[in-house]
């Protein structure tokens, strides 16, 4: 059994922060190339990733070599109560770091046509650092600061291709809506501070006075916007549709879900009634499923479509969590975590392969996807795999997640839960209406090809930097489909932690 623990969450955060500054300075001072910047960024994510896996062994070695230095280390980091870890946060941050490493490698080729890469990688690292900081913070002010760090980097990255009006527009929309959310969150934190006189979450227990309640509600509402729960979702399709594909992969794949988890964890530990929280989330998640899937049907732009699909998938995740909270079902929470990783892998794979199409054959609209036939078959197959996994066909991870979720839903006798399970199913049926045409366009030669296109086939080679991360994600999907038990074991711990939060 994998143990999700992290003694010193400060170390990864510190490392990421330093690397961001280092890359920026190195890029300014030595004019290093895009590839080396990308590799440096990937290296920093990998370092953090492996630090999290081997932390225990590392600490033992340190203990062994420098007797007593562990105490120094402990006194350096643990004296303040700003940070803490929990299994769910470790789980999500590990997905984040792994995904970010893949995306950085991918950018080694993908960003070659852009300028200002020296700003891109530090922003990416800081955004991930912000998300990780949110996941590990035990203090509302620290949480808010990291949230702002993440958000501001995200706004900048969405508008990274600033020469296109649409990117600026999307970034600006994201900025406006995100700022409103930030202000509401800050107001909520202020109200909570008024009540308790402290910002540490551990101190905030038990008050039923109205400022505290309103504070929690405002906190909740702000984070709902940041995690794209309908009706506060409108920024997402624009932002994810216009950002560079590599950034969309991170934003859609894990960022939104990470923020959602933080919201869930903090509101629960602030003493929000789990049943009430579950009920509110249930309503919002059903809206997400309906709106995301229906809007997905009318999209003509591939990345916007994937954005709406994220909204729908966010609905599934929120629904699983909501049912878990309302009916005290560990299995439902577990399925929520399972869908998070299934979606993270599949959606980032979809965005990355979409980026390949965009980069080589300029296919941004759905009908342009047929141009992919002039590329080697590999990215098309990977895209197909991602779509099939997203549309929950067996035996891919999306289906396994759905199976676990529905199994847990049907163990309850609650009518609302059963009804929402049916909405879940109907949603995934409607989703075929937009996933299946994607595959059709990609794999059929229905439409007439441009005359010289046939000749190009197989002449173009896809850069290794781009195909490597895609291959890793494909292998990951196949691995999870062949033995989902490993993932189940990991999610158990995270789900049990959330259960223990419900007091």
């Amino acid at each position, binding site marked *: 059994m994998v143990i999700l623990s992290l003694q010193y969450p400060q170390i990864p955060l510190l490392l990421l922060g330093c690397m961001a500054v280092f890359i920026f300075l190195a890029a300014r001072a030595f004019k290093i190339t895009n590839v080396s910047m990308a590799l440096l960024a990937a290296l920093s994510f990998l370092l953090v990733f492996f630090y999290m896996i081997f932390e225990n062994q590392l600490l033992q070695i340190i203990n062994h070599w420098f007797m007593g230095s562990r105490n120094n280390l402990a006194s350096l980091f643990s004296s303040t109560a700003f940070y803490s870890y929990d299994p769910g946060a470790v789980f999500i941050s590990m997905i984040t770091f792994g995904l970010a490493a893949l995306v950085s490698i991918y950018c080694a080729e993908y960003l070659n046509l852009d300028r200002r890469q020296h700003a891109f990688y530090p922003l990416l690292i800081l955004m991930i650092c912000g998300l990780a900081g949110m996941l590990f913070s035990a203090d509302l002010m620290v949480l808010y600061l990291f949230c702002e760090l993440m958000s501001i980097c995200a706004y900048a990255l969405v508008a990274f291709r600033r020469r296109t009006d649409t990117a600026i527009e999307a970034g600006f929309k994201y900025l406006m809506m995100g700022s409103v959310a930030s202000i509401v969150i800050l107001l909520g934190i202020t109200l909570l501070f008024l009540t308790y006189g402290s910002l540490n979450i551990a101190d905030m227990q038990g008050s039923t006075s109205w400022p505290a309640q309103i504070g929690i509600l405002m906190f909740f509402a702000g984070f709902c916007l940041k995690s794209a729960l309908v009706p506060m979702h409108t920024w997402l399709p624009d932002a994810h549709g216009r950002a560079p594909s590599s950034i969309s992969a991170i934003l859609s794949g894990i960022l939104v879900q990470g923020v959602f988890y933080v919201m869930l964890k903090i509101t629960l530990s602030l003493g929000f009634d789990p049943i009430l929280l579950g009920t509110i989330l249930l309503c919002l998640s059903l809206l997400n499923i309906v709106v995301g899937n229906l809007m997905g049907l009318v999209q003509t732009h591939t990345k916007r479509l994937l954005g709406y699909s994220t909204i729908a998938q966010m609905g599934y995740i929120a629904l699983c969590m909501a049912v878990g909270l309302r009916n005290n079902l560990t299995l439902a929470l577990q399925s929520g975590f399972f869908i998070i990783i299934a979606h993270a892998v599949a959606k980032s794979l979809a965005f990355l392969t979409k980026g390949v199409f965009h980069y080589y054959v300029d296919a941004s609209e759905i009908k342009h996807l047929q141009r992919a036939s002039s590329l080697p078959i590999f990215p098309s197959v990977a895209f197909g795999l991602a779509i*099939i996994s997203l549309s929950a*066909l*067996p*035996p891919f991870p999306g289906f*396994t997640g759905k*199976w*676990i979720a*529905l*199994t*847990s839903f*049907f*163990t309850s006798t609650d009518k609302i839960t059963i009804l929402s*399970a*049916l909405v879940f*199913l109907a949603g*995934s*049926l409607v989703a*075929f*209406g937009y996933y*299946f*045409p994607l595959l*059709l366009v990609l*794999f*059929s*030669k*229905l439409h007439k090809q441009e005359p010289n296109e046939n000749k190009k086939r197989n002449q173009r080679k896809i850069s290794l930097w781009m195909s490597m991360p895609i291959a890793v994600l494909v292998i990951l999907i196949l691995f999870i489909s062949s*033995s*989902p*038990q490993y993932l*189940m*074991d990991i999610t*158990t711990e995270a789900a049990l932690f959330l259960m223990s939060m419900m007091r």
Partner: protein
Amino acid sequence: MKTQELINLSVLLVKLLPAFLLLIFGKAVRRYAKWIALTASLVSLGLFIAYIPILQQGLNTPLNFDYLPSMGIQLSLKIDWLSFPFLLTEEFVTIFAMIFAIGYIKPDDRNHIFYALLLLFSAGMSGTTLANDIFLFYFFWELMLIASALLVVNWGESAKRTAVALKYFIITHLGSLLVLVAFIMIYSQSGMDHFSALWDGVQMVPETIPLIGTLFLLGFGVKMAVVPFHIWLPDTHSEAPMPVTIMLAAAMLSMGTYGILRFPMSFQTPSQFAMFSLPMMIIGIVSEYYGAIMALVETDIKRIIAYSSVSQMGYILFGLGTLTLTGVVGATLHVIYHAIVKALLFCCVGWIIKAVGQRNIKDIRGLRKKLPLLTACTILGALSIAGVPALAIFNSEWLIFSSGFQTPYIALAILEILGSILTSAYILRLVGTMFFTPGEVSKIHEVPFSIKLVTVSLTVLTVLAGIFPRPLFNYIANELPLILGGGW
């Protein structure tokens, strides 16, 4: 792993592995793809026949793999007497469709993908019948759907193939989802996913039993294409390339019957299932009439045969709905006979389309003198589907009709029999117009040998199956008495 378990697995693997290899590396060997696919399906059939002695000795132990132990999901493969007739049908139909495809599909640079998908489609169907647990069943159920939808999309015969494939996919997937809900309800109540466990009877909350039964019947009804859910069938069958149509009509439709026999009828008792008897009989009759009437007014010859499937599925549903042993045995037998005859009729239609180049019945006249062999085959097929004695379908129709009289609803039984007049009407119209109406078709093209071979051998099979029903009957009636808790 014992020999018999190995055979279990290899019946599937000999189709799945070549399919994936063809998909990945097939470009270099695309000229030989058809032979690879045909060999794979022949080997699969051979392995299956080698399994029959094991089955007779009762040594058919399941082959299990742990998949998701903490959820209690264990993948499991098993052949038993209930899956036997369906697996048999499916294996034979695949081979006939493959041979037909060799002559029918023009060689091009995507041949390897076509044959790989055909193999996957076939593997999906054998996997559905071989599976012994609901997870694997659902996986193969969906594989079957995806492979066939992709075949329709890429090799469809007119420009509207994309729309047709989408319609087929969405409607059939709706049925799959209903089945999935029923699966999950059973699973979350009993915690068991093996069929053998379901077979022994499970403890269920009494209120949910009718709901689960309804979900199963609706879901499998979509696959069977009985009347309210038939809307995908005529389009898909007429749009798909002929080898795929043969597999869709002759083998895939029967999967719905298999599902009904395997799930609701296996784990419910007769008293629990009795409430579905009358609706099933009525829907069966409605399908029978509706399909026949539509076939009577349709002008596209491929669509006529397609609507005939709707009508024939009505017979099967009626037989199942009588809840008598005669009816259930008759329905199962009908699945096999219908597969033979429907494959034959589609082969004949394929031959005509290839030879004449026309699909509209108004344009096809006086083929009798020009194509005597085809005329003989088609007439035998037509007589068979009309229920003429000594040809295949007569035996099973007899059982289904007589089962109707064992129920309290004699009026329905009479209606059922009267419906077969319509069957004769549409098929005689087809044969009469195309072969015996005076007139000329402009030009007759030469037809590949493989098409003739398949058509003639299916004709022989039709006659043989009609004259010697006994061996088949014995195999089928082996375990059917055990369903519905064995309380006949």
